[in-house]
């Protein structure tokens, strides 16, 4: 049973006491718009995987705060990096990020996003939602969106799947890799590139 706990999509269903308050209507609207757009791309049978990839990447890149995310996952190593390293890293990380979903976009099978609630978390707004799939094999996955609004624009900072934050996991991975490689950012950049080339 123990081994069951290590997985991304732990399908143990929680009892979360959520109250249905539309505290942050604009943010909830933002998430549902994003989800609608994503589903209309992923569910479009006239698009091949490459077209889906391009359109989906456009949507994602215009909706997430890639600059903040890139820096956050490097954390203290960002401060120590040279300007040149930062430029190269930002590009390699973006490619790595895109390649992480690139060949999975054709696996969409009718799941929908249902907004549950929204709440303030310091400067962020967290919109809670469920991924649901109807039918004989019912599915419900908790998906939390961490949003940041600046200058009137809302951006996605993080996704949390069943309580597992992707950006936190990514940061721990990068921090661990760097601390095991004497903080050598070039080593991380090369590692990212080698993974990008594989995909």
């Amino acid at each position, binding site marked *: 049973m123990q*081994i069951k706990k*290590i997985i*991304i999509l*732990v399908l143990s*269903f929680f*009892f979360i006491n959520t109250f249905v308050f539309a505290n942050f209507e604009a943010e909830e609207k933002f998430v549902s718009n994003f989800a609608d757009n994503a589903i209309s791309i992923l569910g479009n049978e006239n698009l091949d995987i490459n077209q889906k990839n391009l359109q989906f990447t456009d949507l994602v890149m215009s909706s997430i705060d890639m600059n*903040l995310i890139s820096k956050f996952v490097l954390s203290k190593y960002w401060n120590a990096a040279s300007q040149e390293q930062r430029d190269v890293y930002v590009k390699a990380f973006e490619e790595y990020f895109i390649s992480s979903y690139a060949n*999975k976009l054709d696996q969409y099978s009718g799941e929908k996003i249902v907004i549950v609630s929204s709440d303030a978390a310091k400067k962020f707004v967290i919109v809670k939602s469920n991924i649901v799939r109807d039918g004989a094999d019912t599915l419900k996955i908790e998906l939390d969106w961490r949003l940041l609004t600046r200058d009137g624009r809302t951006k996605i900072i993080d996704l949390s799947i069943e309580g597992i*934050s992707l950006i936190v996991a990514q940061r721990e991975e990068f921090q661990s890799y760097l601390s095991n490689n004497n903080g050598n950012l070039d080593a991380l950049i090369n590692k990212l590139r080698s993974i990008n080339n594989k*995909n």
Partner: protein
Amino acid sequence: MKSKSVLVILILSTLISACTSGVKEPPRYIPVKEEIIMKDVISDPIEPINRAIFSFNNVFDKAVVRPVSILYRGILPEFFRNRIAYSLDNLSMPITTINNILQFEFGKAGISSARFVINSTIGILGFFDPASYFGLKADYEDFGQTLAVWGVPTGPYLVLPFLGPSSPRDFTGLMSTSLLDPTYQVGNAANRDLFRAYRMGVGVINFRSENIEIFDDLQNNSVDYYAAVRSFYNQSRNSQISDNLEVSPSINQDSLFNDFEEFELDDTYIGPDVSISYPE
């Protein structure tokens, strides 16, 4: 019998540490919540040993578990695999009920025990899940979570041979389960072990067969696979325990996001070339 007394001592010692760690309030108002739930930095003092065991587990997985899981998924039609998955879930309900009670969650104990009764009877030995149909949703509790509710801190990260990611708290919980779980006592002495081995073995293969692609993907695309699994495990456990303690896991992660302050507010971190831009 001897190994049982070792276990009893282990459980007692965790109980005592629970008592000495300052938990006097009822479980809902745990004063040491911050210690129980995720810290910014995962404690992993024996990382080199953990990494060695992790590598061993991966070799074992590649050689045995993954191939058997692929075979299992390939040979057995989905219908039968689902029946097995449901029956394994059903067998885990009594231990969930016990943990519900130990966590003073009597309403949930009612749900999990009703699930077990309904699915074991109408659900034909648990092969089907009519309970969910009646609105009794599955929830799983283990003794590691109960220890957390009692205020036991998780302790350092631990990778167990064959069993994978754990912590002293979860490992104690895991071992206690073999004592507490009534469905581990099914059968007489001779076939009890056989039944346990079957459950354990099929449980692992069933779980692994559902996640072949996810693990392959994680392994191939990770910069540091060990650190990725460690993070997923810790976050997943913390999320379950946040749930037990009735706090929101996302909101709980806020301290982890403090770094944003410095990146946002201090303009020196943002070079002209990486200025924050918002493409339309």
